[in-house]
């Protein structure tokens, strides 16, 4: 096991860490496939209201690559197709039947999986709607099956701080996981498995498979951060990554011939220790978090997720919900209070003296100002970028300069925006620029 040295990041603890027990949620009445968490997708819908679908029936595909289909995680009848502004597809909602049937895909035995050729496995994954679990850095778009990647990073932790614990979803699944790794080794010569340091104990059965140990600070487990710290040449920039849960799904698909629908998810909320949840893909948000108030903002990751509407459904890539409080009370003389309970990475509040988990709310805690060049963003960036200079280069329309300074090494962890005292939307600016560059290049 190689140690990855990441020193910078978010070291403060936050309230609301999920408990390590698992409860299974009852079957919901509806289920949906969301298009909002799928990168760069231009969907073409294959069903209409009232159509009957099985588990594994395609609901829509990506016009840029018609092979990449998004399959239905439940059997029932298409209840509605939800569009947003400018007819952007939000989600396809399916009303579930009591008894559900599967679409049968080609399956392989464990032994056959070992000897099967790469193309066959790729075909099964594409047909089975799970190829898109493999994504390509730095833009995080769907991996191209025609290309051999320089390396594949298996991220046991998803992006959020409180994402499902790998020890839970890998419990008793060691052999599947090892099969998954052998499958990835067919696709790429090098496979990296990175685990958080304090998860190693619970991952003991897998220890021989873990190649890299990462420190326990957000966002060290982000594939962009891992890649930045292990890469030696520029060829490795286009590494692929897959999360541990998705890898298990891929193996299950190949072995059973059925589209796998179960995942482990977490819901985190301040002052609440919720258990891990065994859910189905695309469950309604309300069934995961029933007691939502109007002062709650739901996100699929407080640092790098998206805002989720309370009456929508979980996405294909999303296994975390963070519920953040909306502040309504303006604090009297807020800028000069000692702040014993404020969450901060600076040393300007008394709370920095105690090692207490901090509160999380979704307020910016200040107004936007011009950059004062304090370099707080550089002090926290896990990939040692200089966000203040990159932001200024982008403002000056100097994309070349921004790229030189490592714009594409940005792992979208959001910490630069988090720490900025001038409340500049750095992460948003970078994400926009990276997406625009990617679209331009395609």
């Amino acid at each position: 096991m190689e140690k990855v040295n990441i020193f910078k990041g978010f070291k403060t603890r936050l309230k609301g860490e999920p408990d390590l027990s698992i409860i299974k949620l009852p079957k919901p009445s509806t289920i949906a496939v969301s298009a909002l968490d799928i990168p760069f997708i231009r969907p073409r819908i294959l069903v209409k209201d009232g159509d009957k679908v099985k588990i594994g029936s395609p609901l829509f595909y990506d016009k840029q690559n018609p092979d990449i289909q998004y399959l239905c995680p439940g059997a029932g009848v298409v209840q509605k197709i939800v569009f947003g502004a400018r007819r952007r597809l939000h989600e396809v909602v399916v009303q579930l039947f009591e008894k559900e049937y599967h679409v049968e895909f080609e399956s392989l035995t464990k032994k056959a999986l070992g000897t099967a050729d790469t193309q066959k496995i790729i075909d099964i994954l594409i047909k089975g709607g799970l190829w898109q679990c493999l994504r390509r850095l730095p833009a995080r778009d769907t991996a191209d099956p025609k290309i051999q990647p320089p390396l594949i990073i298996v991220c046991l932790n998803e992006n959020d701080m409180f994402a499902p614990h790998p020890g839970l979803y890998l419990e008793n699944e060691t052999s599947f996981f090892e099969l998954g790794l052998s499958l990835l080794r067919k696709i790429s010569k090098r496979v990296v498995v990175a685990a958080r340091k304090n998860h190693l104990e619970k991952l003991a059965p897998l220890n021989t498979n873990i190649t890299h140990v990462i420190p326990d600070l957000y966002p060290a487990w982000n594939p962009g951060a891992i890649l930045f710290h292990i890469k030696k040449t520029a060829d490795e920039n286009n590494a692929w990554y897959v999360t541990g849960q998705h890898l298990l799904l891929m193996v299950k698909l190949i072995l059973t011939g059925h589209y796998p629908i179960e995942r482990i998810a977490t819901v985190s909320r301040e002052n609440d220790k919720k258990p891990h949840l065994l859910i189905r893909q695309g469950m309604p948000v309300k069934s995961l978090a029933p007691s939502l108030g109007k002062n709650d903002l739901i996100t699929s990751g407080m640092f790098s997720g998206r805002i989720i509407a309370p009456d929508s459904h979980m996405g294909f890539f999303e296994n975390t919900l963070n519920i953040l409080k909306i502040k309504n009370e303006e604090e009297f003389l807020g800028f000069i209070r000692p702040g014993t309970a404020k969450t901060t990475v600076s040393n300007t509040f008394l709370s920095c003296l105690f090692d207490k988990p901090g509160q999380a709310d979704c307020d910016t805690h200040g107004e936007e100002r011009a950059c004062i060049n304090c370099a707080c963003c550089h002090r926290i960036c896990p990939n040692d970028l200089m966000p203040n200079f990159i932001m200024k280069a982008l403002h000056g329309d100097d994309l070349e300069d921004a790229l030189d300074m490592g714009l594409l090494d940005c792992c979208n962890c959001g910490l630069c925006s988090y720490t900025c005292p001038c409340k500049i939307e750095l992460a948003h600016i970078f994400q926009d620029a990276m997406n625009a560059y990617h679209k331009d290049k395609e």
Partner: protein
Amino acid sequence: MKWLKRIFDKSEKHFSGSGKLAKAHALFDATKTVFFHPLRRTAFIPFLRDCLDLKRYMTFVLISLVPVTIFGIYNTGYRAGLGSGVELDLLDSFLHGSYYVIPIILVSYVVGLFWEILFAGIRKHKISEGFLVTGLLFPLTLPATIPLWQVALGISFGVIIGKEVFGGTGRNILNPALTARAFVYFSYPVSMSGEIWIPNLGAVDGMSGATPLAVAAQGNQSILAALSDMGFALKNLFWGFVPGSIGETSVFCIVLGMFFLLVTRIANFRIIAGGIAGLIFTAIVFYLFGEDPGSWIKAGPLYHLFAGSFLFGITFMATDPVSAPGTNEARWIFGFLIGFFTVTIRVANPAFVEGTMLAILFMNVFAPLLDHMVVKYKVSKRIPNV
């Protein structure tokens, strides 16, 4: 505090839209946000944000300036007493000092704020908190005897030319407070140098109003003996019981402020450490190779450190993040060169007895270049990703 909130809510309509006082919206907004920290929900990633904002950031600099300001007021009163031939007690010194210093600070704030509001109103911006610091730093660099109209002129120049023409706080090249001081220094040299450091000067014979840096030894006397004779022993310089600009005299109070800024990480330690290292290094070089025993060449590093405004400048002026470099390596160089130029101007330039202001302004101009070089170097070390 609901009654106060109600007053703000009720009067808001006059200051916005087509209200009668819509032009003063920036002032209204600034006042309101001081009392009630504004709420704004995050719209983009990350959805939670740090509690530190620019208001608190700049307020912390003001807090760090409290010791020097209070001591400055006291020392001005005490010196004024000595100048008139009486030894005032603590309270009297303080009251007497307030009589000189408070008007200077007030004029600086009122006139500066006027320009801030004017520019913020025209640009439809919010008033940036950076001015709070400029408005206090500038008076602290002045002698207590300065005419108030010069203060008003200076702060106007500092705010307009030093900052607003570039677009406001965050976009300026030079430190606005030092720009203001440089303007006054070169426009009204009589008010800024010579025997002007003690109010009521002239009533008592043998009471010099010069600052330690203006001291030069007579005959074969060494500089250290001359300083000692004039009452500028190291101990006095440390505690600050010497004539000088309002805020610069007390090393002790400056170090208190410095400690506060470093612990809260508002000021970057690299600039301060680099500056002190540069000053000590240069002072030692001059001490070893210089020849004139009666001049500041032979004063040695400790006197260079404690006398004049170097510590004040390196702590509160050079660490202004806007005009200092934004990369760590450049900050070391920036600080070091400020120390170097300070001593060099002090000992090698007959026109100016003090070099801190010029050294910092000079390095402010070079800060973007230092940043540029460091960024280019770092880019060359990266594994390219395009």
